[in-house]
């Protein structure tokens, strides 16, 4: 499916993150590379060292946090899925004020009021009626 190495790496990071989010609820002390490899590496036919490298890179990118536990690292997601989702959607309207097309349109509005939404629905009803007439008439 994903033949591009960068896409494959992105896909692997996503799978690792997914697993950390799910598994860290039951194991707040964190997961070792061995845990992650057993969960998602084996079925993909990936070497232990591949997962080690990926987790190391993700720690450097601050996607995951880690703590020493004897000779192994224990990994945890740096932020929850909800936090990252909020951040992603917040990006699309913040930071680039004026440059990102959505933010410019969103600045049109202040806070949308129920009246505004009603007016919008009425405008759609008008348009639907016009189109209906055009088709039958």
């Amino acid at each position: 499916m994903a033949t591009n190495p960068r896409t494959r790496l992105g896909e692997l990071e996503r799978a690792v993150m997914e697993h950390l989010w799910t598994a860290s609820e039951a194991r707040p002390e964190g997961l070792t590379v061995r845990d992650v490899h057993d969960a998602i590496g084996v079925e993909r036919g990936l070497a232990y060292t591949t997962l080690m490298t990926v987790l190391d890179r993700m720690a450097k990118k601050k996607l995951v946090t880690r703590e020493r536990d004897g000779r192994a690292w224990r990994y945890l997601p740096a932020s929850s899925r909800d936090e990252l989702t909020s951040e992603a959607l917040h990006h699309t309207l913040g930071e680039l004020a004026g440059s990102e097309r959505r933010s410019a349109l969103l600045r049109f509005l202040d806070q949308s009021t129920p009246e505004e939404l009603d007016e919008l629905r009425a405008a759609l009803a008008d348009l639907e009626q016009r189109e209906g007439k055009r088709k039958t008439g």
Partner: protein
Amino acid sequence: MVIAALLILMIALAWPVPRLMAGMTTFRRAPRAALVVWQATSVAAVLAALFAAPAALPYLIGPAPELTDNATQIAIAVTVTGLIAGRLIVSGHRVGTRLRAHRRRHRRLVDLLAVPVGADASHAAHMRVIEHPTPTAYCVPGVRRRVVLTQGTLDALPEDQLDAVLAHERAHLRARHDLILEFFTVIHEAVPSWFRCEAALREVTLLIEVLADRAAVRATGVLSTARAIVGMATGAVKPEGMLAMSESPSAARLRLELLEPGPVAGLPAPMAAAVMYLFAGSVVLMPVALLVVAWATA
């Protein structure tokens, strides 16, 4: 005379013209031509600013200046034009770097959060779905582009409206609307902040949306597109502790009204567009002509 004309042209194009044009809402009915006019006035303003000093030279030091005799005047002219060009280059660099860094970071975030949908179908290879209840759709332009939808969009819209949303986002990506907006942002940020016209940038943004909406109309029809716009704008859900955003209802209403081409200022749309293209061409030619006149008549 010619220098005065260039200066007046520059100031007019930079200050009153964008403010006037932003208020001439009838031209939204011909969004493509209107965007060309916006681009033409911006280019003309930049050219007028760059040409002012070179146009002044023949009046100050004669038509055949000697580099050795008139070094000071020539140096001043080069400096003035260089400063203006420098501002533009710096602004272009700043905006470009910022946009690309932002997109790269955003794309990483999206790829981490969202599962690719239907990766076997080539047209869906760039699509990502994020778990969030508010209907939102947008695109991240660039070489590794993405169309991002929230789960809320998939839940709220029936198939034909979803097609309209996707056609809208793909139109943005295909026509590289991001580059048009980047061009305007660079010019916008190159001028001093008290001189900038936010209304102009908003107008251009709306025109780009209208263009994408019309692509959606061609792909899925007026009704599906209109319903999709309203569905996206009215479906906002605010989950606890999460940020929610949605299309502004007032912008959505404007877009509804502009889905189909109509007469512009009383003229049929194609005729109005032809006049607008002609105007755009003459606006760009004006500073060039003035520079030529300055050197030919001195």
